C-alpha cells in the first residue's frame, strides 16, 4: 500500500480508469512527467499524448488523452482529460486517415478559425500515431 498511488482518469465522456499504480507517466504541458507515490501536490495542464499507468503487479496500461488537466496529491493522481481513450481502442487505420484529412485541410488553408482547428487536430492525431507506433514496437 505504501508504494502505490490512486489513479483516476476521467474524461467528459466518462470514467476511463480507476485503480492503484506504482508509477504514472503523463504528458504535462511543459514536458512529460513521471509520478511516483507521495509526489508533492501539483497542478498542471496536459497536452495531447499518452498516459501510462504501471500497476503494482508489473502490468502497464496505456491511455490516449487529448489534452486536459492533472492534479497530484500525495496519495492520488487525477487526470481530467478533455477526451481520453484506452490504447486498445485506438484504431490505427482510422487515425492515419484522419491525420491525412487534417493535413489536407491545413494545406488548403480556409479561414483563420478552421486553420487553428486543423492544427490542433493534427497535434492530437500526431500524438495518437506516436503512441500507436510505440505500442507496436513493444508488442
Amino acid at each position, binding site marked *: 500500500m505504501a508504494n502505490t498511488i490512486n489513479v*483516476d482518469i*476521467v*474524461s*467528459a*465522456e*466518462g*470514467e476511463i480508469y480507476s485503480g492503484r499504480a506504482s508509477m504514472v507517466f503523463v504528458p*504535462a*504541458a*511543459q514536458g512529460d512527467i513521471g509520478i511516483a507515490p507521495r509526489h*508533492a*501536490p*501539483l*497542478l*498542471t*495542464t496536459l497536452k495531447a499524448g499518452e498516459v501510462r499507468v504501471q500497476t503494482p503487479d508489473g502490468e502497464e496500461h496505456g491511455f490516449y488523452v487529448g489534452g486536459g*488537466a492533472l*492534479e497530484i*496529491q*500525495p*496519495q*492520488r493522481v*487525477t487526470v*481530467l482529460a478533455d477526451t481520453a481513450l484506452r490504447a486498445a481502442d485506438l484504431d490505427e487505420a482510422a487515425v492515419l486517415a484522419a491525420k491525412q484529412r487534417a493535413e489536407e485541410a491545413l494545406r488548403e488553408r480556409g479561414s483563420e478559425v478552421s486553420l487553428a482547428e486543423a492544427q490542433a487536430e493534427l497535434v492530437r492525431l500526431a500524438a495518437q500515431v506516436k503512441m500507436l507506433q510505440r505500442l507496436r514496437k513493444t508488442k
Partner: protein
Amino acid sequence: MAGAKEIRTKIASIKSTQKITKAMEMVAASKMRKAQDRMRAARPYAEKIRNVIGHLRVANPDYRHPYLQERPVKAVGLIVISTDRGLCGALNVNVFKQALGAIKDYQAQGVGVELCLVGSKAVQFFRRLRLPISATVTHLGDRPHVTSFIGTVKVMLDAYAEGKIDRLLLVNAEFVNTMSQKPVARQLLPAEPVRSSELQDMWDYIYEPSAADLLEGLLTRYIESQVYQGAVENVACEMAARMVAMKSATDNAGKLIDELQLIYNKARQAAITKEISEIVGGAAAV
C-alpha cells in the same frame, strides 16, 4: 335517450387522448434510458473536477484567484436550469420553488439577484416575475452540448469578475431515481472547499505553468462542466418525470373511460326500458 350519444363521443375522445399519452410515455421511457447513460457518463468528470477545485480552496497559495475568494455578498447570480417543454409533472415547478426560496432569502437580506436561465420554461416563468435576467439559453434538445453553455457561462463569469455578483449558484433538478427528482441549489462561485483526510496542513500546489494562467482555464472549465452536468441531469429528470406523468395520465384516462362506459350502459338500458314500457303502455291502451 338523452346523453348516450354525448357519452359515446366523450369516450372516443378520451380514448384518443389516452393513445397520445401512452405514446408519449413510451417515447419518454426510451429517451430516459439514453439520457441516464449520458448523465452517468458525465458524472465522474464533474465530481472529480469539483474535488480538485475544492482542494484548491483549502490550499495556501501565494496567488489567490478571485473565483476562490469569499467576499461580502451584495448580489448573487443564479443559473436556473429548466426544461424546454412541459407535460413533465411538477419538475419545473419544484425547481422554480427552490430558486424562488433562495431569491426571497437573499432579497430579505437586501442582496440583489441576477438570473441566468436555461430552458424556455424558466424564461417564461421568470419573465413574468420581472426579475433581472442577464442571459438565457433555450432549445438545447435532448442532447445538450458543452459548447451551448460557453456563452451564458461567460456572461455570469464576467459579471462575477467585474464584481456585479459576488456569489454564483446553480439550481437544477437532481436525478435520484425514476420516481423522484430533487431540486438542488449548489454554490459554484466562490468554489466550496473540500476537506479530506488525505490532505496535509499548510500546503500548496506546484503550478505548471504559472498559477494565474492555469487557474483561469481550469476554473472556467470547472464552471462549464458543472453547468453541463446540471443540464444533462435535468434532461434525465425531464424524461423520467414525463414518463411518470404520462403513465398516470394514461391510467387516469383508463379509469375515466371505465366510469363513462358504466354511465353509458345505464343510460342505454334506461332508454330501452323506457321504450318497452311505452310500447307496453301503448298496447294496453288499444
